[in-house]
């Protein structure tokens, strides 16, 4: 089993190295096969490891690779932890990655940087697996940084476009700000429990004082907001849509942005110690979900709608973590991976068929031209809106039920957000697939064509998963379900007021009502129009002016400080010190030069005075 787990991690790295070293001799087909094959291999091994774990005596298996850092009291092994949480993450990460690799072989066909794309994708999968499989915070952090780096590379893939380059930088910088939080959490934990390995931290977590636990939790939250695009570090995700669509699907829907949630869930025993920390997490999650949903209602670019939708759904996951419903958060994470990847890949198929058009005002009535994309996208739309019996209904319902049990105001916010979600997704669907044809200019009069099998097959697979995904954690089978499987890894959280069966049916009814209401609103409003000042507000479209706010409070003052440094500090203080030193040396030299008067009698006088000084000194000493 140790070998299987190690290979899960190393196969993508192997794919990366093979393409790196031999890439110039390989053609597109071979590169695609190697890249996709590596990840498919990882998926297969993940399945194998899953079954091995089930039959294993203990549900926590540590695979020690080698001792990495051994300095004083700091022992950081390079070791992998195989437990229910990590194997779950591995399964859906490798599965979805494999589908997206396959999709990319067709989507990126003909690009001149095809090889580079697959290099980065494989490296990304490796980093993500390191993140979830690492048995200590340091390895997770290495993976954390790795996915941030690959995200930067992939977002600015079309680097000769200014917008893409800036978006890559923005993503990386926001991630970096969040990383400070993760580092602080590591420092705090190490200084108090003297270990960074998960299992050791959990066994010693009880020794942490509530203040320290809260600080650690808040620091981890900062890291999570950076990586998972929550308030206050979320505005990099919409800009990251500059990257190619498979990148958006993989990184910014299914894997990297879930890393923050994973971190919080992994550290749940520490979260258990701080109720104020958890409350903060819940509030941030709920507020982010709501704000992002409002913004999504007014976006015109299909990918931007999906991006804000991602932010909103992750807000739900974070909200679930905040109230202690870890299993629900993971369930939503998995089902969100299915339907969000489906939606992104579907939008990629639409964009591909329209030669790169992304503005929804120039789409419409594509249903009859895209016979495979249309039904799969429809399934994705229904899932995210929360219509039963698709996966979205069960997972979002699970989250909302748990939130209801702990915090009524946040539950209300969650339901409102669900209405908004259904509304904006319906708007997207109607504008893209129904209504009138508005795309004839972009396709130069031709009909849009369906995408090749490599692109449509993943869509079909993901759609099927969205349909049946709900069985992972149906509310009436708790023990053999996902929740039961995962619960040993979670820390204890005080239970809220448990909702009885009647209450659960009631809540389910509320969820369905919310979804249907949002759907109807979307249909009626957007059936005949393509834009509307009443329903699309510029404030929402400009992300509540969040970017402008950061620019005014942080960006511009820092630029001014830098300018001040360049205009004043650099020439006058730093250069001034150096040149001042040189000038003072020269001036003192010029002054001292006058001692050399050229007169012999001056020199003789100096000699005599020197002798006089010596003699006086001797007299003083003797006397």
């Amino acid at each position: 089993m140790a070998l299987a787990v190690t290979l899960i991690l190393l196969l993508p790295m192997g794919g990366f190295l093979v393409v790196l070293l031999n890439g110039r001799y390989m053609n597109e087909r071979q590169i695609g096969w190697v890249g996709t094959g590596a990840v498919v291999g990882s998926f297969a091994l993940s399945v194998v490891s899953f079954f091995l774990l089930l039959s294993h005596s203990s549900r926590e298996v540590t695979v020690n690779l080698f001792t990495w850092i051994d300095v004083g009291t700091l022992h950081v092994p390079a070791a992998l932890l195989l437990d229910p949480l990590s194997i779950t993450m591995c399964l859906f990460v490798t599965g979805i990655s494999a589908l997206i690799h396959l999709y990319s072989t067709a989507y990126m066909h003909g690009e001149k940087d095809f090889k580079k794309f697959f290099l980065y994708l494989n490296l990304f999968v490796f980093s993500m697996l390191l993140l979830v499989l690492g048995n200590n915070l340091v390895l997770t952090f290495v993976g954390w940084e790795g996915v941030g780096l690959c995200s930067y590379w992939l977002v600015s893939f079309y680097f000769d476009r200014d917008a893409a380059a800036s978006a890559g930088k923005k993503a990386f910088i926001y991630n970096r700000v969040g990383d400070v939080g993760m580092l602080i959490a590591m420092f705090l934990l190490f200084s108090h429990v003297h270990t960074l390995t998960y299992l050791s931290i959990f066994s010693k977590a009880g020794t942490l004082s509530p203040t320290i636990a809260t600080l650690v939790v808040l620091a981890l939250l900062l890291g999570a907001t950076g990586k998972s695009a929550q308030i206050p570090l979320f505005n990099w995700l919409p800009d990251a849509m500059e990257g190619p669509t498979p990148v958006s699907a993989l990184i910014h829907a299914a894997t990297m942005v879930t890393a923050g949630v994973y971190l919080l869930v992994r550290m749940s025993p520490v979260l258990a110690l701080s109720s104020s920390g958890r409350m903060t997490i819940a509030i941030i999650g709920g507020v982010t979900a709501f704000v992002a949903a409002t913004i999504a209602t007014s976006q015109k670019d299909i990918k931007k709608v999906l991006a804000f939708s991602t932010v909103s759904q992750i807000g739900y996951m974070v909200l679930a973590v905040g109230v202690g419903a870890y299993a629900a958060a993971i369930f939503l994470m998995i089902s969100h991976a299915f339907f969000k990847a489906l939606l992104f890949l579907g939008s990629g198929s639409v964009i591909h068929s329209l030669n790169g058009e992304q503005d929804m005002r120039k789409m419409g009535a594509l249903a009859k031209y895209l016979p495979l994309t249309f039904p799969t996208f429809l399934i994705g739309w229904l899932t995210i809106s929360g219509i039963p019996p698709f996966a979205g209904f069960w997972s979002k319902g699970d989250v909302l039920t748990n939130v209801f049990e702990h915090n009524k105001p946040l539950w209300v916010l969650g339901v409102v957000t669900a209405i908004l979600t259904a509304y904006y997704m319906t708007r997207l669907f109607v504008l893209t697939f129904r209504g009138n044809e508005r795309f004839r200019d972009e396709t130069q009069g031709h009909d849009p064509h369906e995408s090749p099998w490599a692109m449509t097959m993943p869509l079909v697979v993901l759609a099927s998963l969205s349909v049946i995904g709900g069985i992972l954690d149906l509310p009436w089978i708790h023990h053999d379900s996902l929740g039961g499987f995962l619960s040993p890894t979670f820390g204890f959280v005080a239970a809220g007021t448990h909702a009885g069966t009647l209450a659960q049916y009631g809540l389910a009814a509320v969820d369905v009502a919310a979804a249907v209401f949002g759907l109807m609103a979307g249909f009626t409003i957007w059936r005949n129009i393509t834009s509307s000042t009443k329903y699309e507000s510029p404030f929402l479209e400009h992300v509540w002016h969040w970017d402008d706010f950061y620019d005014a409070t942080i960006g511009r003052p820092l630029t001014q400080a830098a300018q001040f440094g360049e205009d004043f500090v650099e020439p006058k203080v730093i250069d001034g010190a150096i040149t001042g030193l040189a000038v003072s040396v020269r001036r003192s030299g010029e002054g001292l030069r006058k001692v050399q008067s050229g007169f012999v009698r001056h020199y003789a006088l100096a000699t005599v005075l020197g002798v006089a000084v010596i003699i006086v000194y001797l007299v003083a000493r003797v006397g």
Partner: protein
Amino acid sequence: MIAAAYAVPSILVFVTSALLIVVGAIGVIAVKNPVHAALCLIMTLFGVAVAFVAQSADFLAAVQIIVYAGAIVVLFLFVIMFLGVDRREHVNFEPLVGQRAFAGVGVVLTIGGLVTLMARSHWVTGAVSVTTPLSSGNANVKELGDAVFTTYLFAFEATAALLIIAVVGAVLLARRERSVQSEEVAP
């Protein structure tokens, strides 16, 4: 008795030599005319010779008169006349600021300090020599000759070389530039 009558008290000798020395020295530094200064120098040298005799350094007294007063001062006078600088020098005017004041201070401090040091350390310290004792009278020359030609022989030879070098150097220094034509006059 006659010898006793001619035995002049040593204090008289000292006073004489002291007067000659000091008056001559002040004359050297004070008079305007270089030729007069040279004559005052001779007076000082005579005074020193008298002091030498009083200290039983007869040979040195003789050498002092012959070499110093006889050769060196004559050499000075030669050069003064040769260069024609027997004009008066403007002694009252001192172009360098503060030179005289500082010089006075320095000299007074040095001399005063020296005298104080010597007084504090009982004037003459050191062991009385037993290997090269001093004798008075005719034996002084013999003594000095023994010392110079045996103990200090190397120094003696070195000074001989020094004198030759000095002479050669002086000749070279004072030579006028030769013109090229005189080289072509071949025998």
